[in-house]
């Protein structure tokens, strides 16, 4: 048994156990309706978390995604209100902007040799500020095409609905898994996370890969913003505050090593589902306050970090006595 699969395995076991415990108490939790809602409600977070997984595997961090989501929503709302541009064209425009924004942050991180933390913090302020400048009000989106898009769903057996945005999230996860494990880019990302100098000596194009990673994160944050605007049918510059923290939590709970170099996009999906499950359980229960979500996620985060440490420690022991 390879020790790098352990965190992922633990995540899956925890998810199955907690889902079973929830289902034992509330049998309705097993229905496809709940499953469909779980996917729909967490779609925007999941898409952003895929980008965050790549960033964290490469040993970096991206704090700007919450602000980029808000910017995307406000941008779309303003464009659709003030011009006759078709939503699909607006989607393409905003994706170009957010991808370029992410790539720019990657370039600053690489060429100025500054910690990703502070560069993306500046990006966070910048994107939030841009959305404030566009509008400080919550703008409703009343385009017909939006209601067409939100009306699309696939009927699951048992009455549940897999909505368009839930489906987009699943596709993004599938694409992320392919990108991480079946392409040269994915290999380069893992190599970067293992150590920049080693990667450089092995011939990984560090500058290009760094810029690509943050551009990918920017692109997915933009896509997440589009999904979020479909989900809420509005653009608001104060929306999606702190999404980056939820995304980081999903990635870590999903078993990705925070030091970079190891992790799975699929794990992030399970991490996301665990977070969604906690929220669903609290909704079902009805007596627990929503702040228990935060405390439980904090505790889970702590438990997983501890487990990662233990695994690293054990594997170093193995190497020593091998």
């Amino acid at each position, binding site marked *: 048994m390879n020790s790098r699969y352990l965190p992922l395995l633990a995540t899956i076991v925890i998810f199955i156990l907690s889902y079973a415990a929830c289902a034992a108490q509330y049998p309705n939790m097993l229905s496809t309706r709940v499953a469909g809602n779980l996917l729909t409600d967490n779609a925007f977070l999941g898409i952003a978390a895929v980008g965050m997984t790549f960033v964290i595997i490469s040993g970096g*961090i991206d704090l700007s995604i919450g602000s980029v989501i808000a910017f995307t929503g406000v941008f779309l709302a303003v464009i659709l209100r003030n011009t006759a541009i078709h939503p699909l064209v607006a989607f393409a425009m905003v994706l170009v902007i957010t991808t370029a924004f992410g790539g720019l942050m990657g370039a*600053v991180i690489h*060429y*100025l*040799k*500054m*910690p990703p*933390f*502070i*560069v993306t*913090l*500046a*990006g*966070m*302020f*910048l994107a*939030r*500020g*841009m959305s*404030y*400048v566009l509008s*400080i009000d919550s703008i409703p989106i009343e385009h017909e095409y939006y209601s067409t898009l939100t009306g699309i769903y696939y009927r699951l057996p048992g009455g549940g609905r897999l909505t368009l945005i839930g489906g987009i999230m699943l596709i993004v996860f599938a694409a992320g898994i392919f990108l991480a494990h079946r392409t040269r880019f994915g290999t380069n990302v893992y190599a970067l996370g293992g150590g920049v100098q080693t990667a450089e000596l092995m011939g990984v194009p560090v500058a290009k890969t760094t810029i690509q990673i943050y551009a990918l994160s920017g692109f997915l944050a933009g896509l997440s913003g589009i999904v979020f605007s479909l989900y809420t049918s509005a653009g608001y510059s104060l929306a999606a505050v702190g999404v980056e*923290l939820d995304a*980081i*939590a999903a990635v*870590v709970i999903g078993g990705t090593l*925070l*030091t970079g170099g190891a992790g799975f996009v699929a794990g992030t999906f399970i991490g996301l589902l665990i977070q969604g499950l906690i929220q669903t359980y609290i909704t079902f229960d009805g007596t627990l*306050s929503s*702040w*228990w*979500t*935060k*405390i439980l*996620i*904090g*505790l889970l*985060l*702590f438990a997983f*970090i*501890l487990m990662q*440490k233990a695994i690293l420690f054990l594997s170093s022991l193995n190497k020593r006595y091998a």
Partner: protein
Amino acid sequence: MSLDANTGIAEKTSGFGLGSMLRSPLALPLAGLIVVSILMGLASDNFFSVNNIMNVLRQVSVVGILAVGMTFVILTGGIDLSVGAVVAICGAVAAASIAGGHSAFFAVIAALAVGMLCGLWNGFLVAILGIQPIIATLVLMVAGRGIAQLITEGVIMTFNDPGLIFFGSGSFAYLPMPVVIWLLVGAIVILLVRRTALGMLVEAVGINRRASTLSGVRTPVLLMAVYMLSALCAAIAGIIVAADIKGADANNAGLWLELDAILAVVVGGNSLLGGRFSILGSLIGAMIIQAVNTGILLSGFPPEFNLIIKAIIILVILIIQSPALQSAAAFFSRKPAESAGMRVEQPK
């Protein structure tokens, strides 16, 4: 006009050349503060009124206190994301003690004690378990607001105890109480680290943790102390914030203050990579940020631009601080006689 005199001085100091500026770490932030103040003074007539200066000082004190603790954390190469949450927790503890019928003195002591406990937790994760500071403090940042809400039972707890309110809106020697506390905290910490070996030891840990451990520095104890100091500063800030609004708001107290505090430290000329530090620099950094905040409001610019201007400030500072640019600056500004010595001092 005193304003013009200020510009003259600022220009003269910068006229000495980049080399001498880089050697005095305070020169750059100070020049920044002067430039920002002049810009804001030009943009609005009221900026230099006594009222407004008091106002800026009053508002800067909370971020300023946080920045003192944050300076040390950043100095060790770490970062403390949890200070905003600790502000909320400690404010909630203070309010809950008052609501429980205790005295203001007890409330303050309880809040400070809980703050120390939070710091102990962060320090334990970083120093003993060896978790990266960003992630270790993220745990408390995520869970902290939940804990604060647990204490306040989900409502905004208000109180009317004059003793506790004094910390927020009282005044001492014509200075608002938060400013007095801020100056006091700054002075005590500066004395503590500059008059003892503590500052040097923490600097050593920040430059090379392994080397300092090998040369006998008790790194874990120092790291724990640093995170406890940061949380203690957050606790003091929490008491002030709660006292200022006469209530504890678990959701909004100290929201995003950690980012302002980090920004203040960086703007003050401290390197995020750890190693060299100046508490005065951080205090000046906090003042720059607050001057920008207030100046934008006063000048009639829409407040929406506030964040963009902050982002631009960070970017400019990043570029100035970036290793690539600094080596270029050192190359162009070196004097022939000094260059040999400087090369030896800065290996790599």
